[in-house]
């Protein structure tokens, strides 16, 4: 199956509920984890933790998982190419369940851009994942952003805001920097990662208030009461994407805890991500 067939299939399958685990689910009820990881392994033939991840997803009613695989960082070209090969293999093994972000280190220049083009031409890749090698406002990142814009795919950007220097992550981005990047590139589809995994989440939500093109994913281990409610109040449900980032019960529990209308819940759990993916599909 080539990319064109795959993406056309994604839309068609979603429309007929084939991805959904529960028989009663319809297209609107699909649950998509927008922020997941699979383990890095040397050989794409090695299934690694894929079955464990699927078992967790099955128990929680998650239909699809948008995954990235992170090599040792700062990532080299060889490292991220190897990771993305594993991602492609994981999708091939479980095409209805695993979708892939192409992981690159923007500091690798043209090689990073080329890797995005290569991966996004393969079945199963739906976006770009960036980590903390460079702040998102560093001009070295811009060619990667521009490539993602050209391909109409989302960029999931690791982020966090601490009131102390983050010694292990000196170049970590935060909601404020992603808002700044969005000003420069309003057409970019930016996802600020893990509201519950990146420090002061109230700061993050407030920093993103006026950056209307930036989505926020709900993943992370922090389960502070009112987190999702505040995000909905300040950003609206249209800008939130459900995610777990491997904190499985935290991810589902946060959504259960939030005071959401049925329509808001559907949007956050999968509708918004479907809409993002459909932008890519419409280009074909």
């Amino acid at each position, binding site marked *: 199956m080539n990319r064109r067939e795959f993406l056309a299939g994604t839309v068609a399958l979603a429309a007929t509920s084939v991805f959904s685990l529960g028989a009663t689910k319809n297209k609107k009820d699909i649950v998509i984890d927008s922020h997941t990881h699979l383990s890095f392994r040397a050989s794409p033939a090695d299934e690694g*933790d894929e079955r*464990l*991840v699927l*078992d*967790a997803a099955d*128990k*929680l009613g998650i239909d699809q998982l948008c995954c990235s695989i992170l090599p040792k960082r700062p990532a080299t070209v060889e490292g991220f190419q190897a990771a993305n090969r594993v991602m492609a293999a994981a999708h091939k093994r479980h095409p209805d369940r695993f979708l892939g972000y192409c992981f690159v280190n923007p500091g690798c220049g043209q090689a990073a851009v080329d890797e995005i083009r290569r991966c996004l031409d393969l079945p199963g890749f739906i976006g770009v994942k960036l980590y903390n090698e460079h702040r998102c406002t560093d001009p070295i990142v811009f060619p990667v952003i521009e490539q993602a814009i050209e391909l109409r795919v989302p960029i999931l950007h690791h982020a*966090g805001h*601490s*009131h*102390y220097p*983050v010694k292990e992550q000196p170049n970590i981005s935060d909601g404020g920097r992603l808002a700044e990047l969005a000003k420069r590139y309003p057409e970019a589809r930016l996802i600020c990662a893990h509201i519950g995994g*990146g*420090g*002061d*989440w*109230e700061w993050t939500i407030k920093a993103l208030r006026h950056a209307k093109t930036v989505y926020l994913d709900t993943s992370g*281990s*922090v*389960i*502070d*009461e*009112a*987190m999702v409610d505040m995000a909905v109040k300040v950003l609206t449900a249209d800008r939130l994407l459900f995610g777990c980032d*491997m904190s*499985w*019960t*935290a991810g*589902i*529990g*946060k959504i*259960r*805890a939030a005071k959401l209308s049925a329509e808001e819940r559907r949007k956050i759990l999968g509708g918004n991500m479907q809409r993002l993916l459909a932008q890519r599909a419409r280009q074909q």
Partner: protein
Amino acid sequence: MIIDTNAYLGPYAFRHLRHNTADGLLRLMDAKGIDKAWVSSAAAITHRNVQPANEELAESVRRHRDRLVPLAVINPFYAGWQDDLTACKEQLDMKGLRLYPNWHNYKLADKCCLDLIDAATALRMPITIPLRVEDYRQRSWLVDVKDLSPAEIVPLIKAKPQARFVLLNGLGYIASPLGQKNNNLPANYWIEISRLSALMTNEIGKLIKALGPDRIVFGTGMPFNAPDPALVKIEVLQLNRKDKDQICEENAAALMS
């Protein structure tokens, strides 16, 4: 029945809390199917003199003692802690302790702390120790209070075999002696689940295997935390009825009996 061993009332210094009055917490508990909760003062975490906060907590739960079980926050590094403990037990009828060594400027191995443990043990009060209050990454610029590690608890567990400890808001026990079978530690500690994984690494499942279901207790961390993730854990663990009853109710009830 579900008993939450890890709940709080009152204001917290660094974040607005909802559901932090007795009525508010009870409404949340009703909505989530939680029957009882062990509560302590969130304000006392950052107060120098903790006793007014204990008194306020006792007053706030006075009409709800069937569902809200008050625990005293005692700082053994502060003048008059013995009087505070006596007042909490005898006048306020508080049922256990909650300790914050890193917030209150003492170590678990300090003599004052060991003296407090002895005094609480003599009063048959279980001692709960939150390994953290909030996620460390979101700490305020005003304070830099580190989490306790499971390893730091081990000497205390060994030193005070007659005491009964409940460890809250922790994880990583399976990498420490606390979570290992045949660890030569007294069976005087219980582990609460709010931060433990229930899927993939499944630390709860491993702890049940290593220590037994009689050593695990349900807890949420509400209203700091949403209670739902802990409830989801119980759902996905697919425990048999006996284990579930022990973890969700019986172990906590026995500790307070």
